[in-house]
């Protein structure tokens, strides 16, 4: 078997693997911001669900649980607490395999 054929085939396989990994990194990076964006868009379309903008007759629980802010909060938790470690581990496996 000629290495002239095997070499390019392995190279293309490695390239595909690297592309798949970078797509995974990108998807993991985007999960949190997309969730946050969802919350912001929701707040723009339904501002009355943000109690700070419409405080009349609202109680403590209304201030604690404002749906668009909850969505933004969940996105932030994911983005700051979970995603960085995942991306770091994805990149480290990428480094060990290449």
């Amino acid at each position, binding site marked *: 078997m000629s290495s002239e054929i095997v070499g390019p085939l392995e190279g293309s396989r490695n390239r595909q693997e690297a592309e798949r990994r970078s797509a995974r990194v990108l998807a*993991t990076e985007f*999960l949190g911001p997309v969730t946050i964006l969802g919350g912001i868009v929701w707040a723009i379309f339904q501002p009355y669900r943000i109690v700070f903008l419409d405080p009349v007759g609202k109680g403590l*629980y209304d201030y604690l*649980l404002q749906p668009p802010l*909850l969505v933004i909060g*969940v996105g932030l938790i994911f983005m700051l607490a979970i995603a960085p470690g*995942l991306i770091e*581990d*994805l990149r480290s*496996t990428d480094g060990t395999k290449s």
Partner: protein
Amino acid sequence: MAPRAELVHWAFAAGFLLLGLILLAEVIVGNEVFAMRPWRLYLWPSLAFGIGVLLWPVAVFFTNSTLHMLAHGSWAEVAMLAGAVQLAVVRGKLHSRWWTLSLSFSMLVSAAAFLIHEQNPWFFSRSAFLHHAIGWTLVVAAIFPLGQALQPRRAVWGAGFAMTWVVLAVMLFCDRDVAPIFGHLSRFAGGAQ
């Protein structure tokens, strides 16, 4: 001074959204990378167990009928069961992949509770509509853990399971105590007389 039902539903919706994002991330990065830090494996089972624990005070303090209390109690039980079984799997106390079926069981019991305890038809109000929609979504979604047990390597089952929780979160966020559905609200549900 109990919070309104819709507020409690939104709080749980946030929990489900986080659950969905964690599961989705696991599908995206793959089990191998996700398991590189052991604490991550405990994340979603702990969250499911925690949601089950928090459903107990809801069942006891915030329900207004026996039927509602039983429904919330059954959700609390099966959420704790699902979380506990997955914690035992992660910890290495349970080994069989068939334990994944406990998730299907939990989802079917939850679905039954949703569908049985909602006494009104689909278009009675938004809340009634969402009860039916969530119930049938859970019935259909119970196939995902079954798929995971039968074909553990296929990512589509994990992705479906993860998206189920995101969809349920969206539905719960849409819930209002009194609101129309597609412009219709029964006068018995608080609509125009």
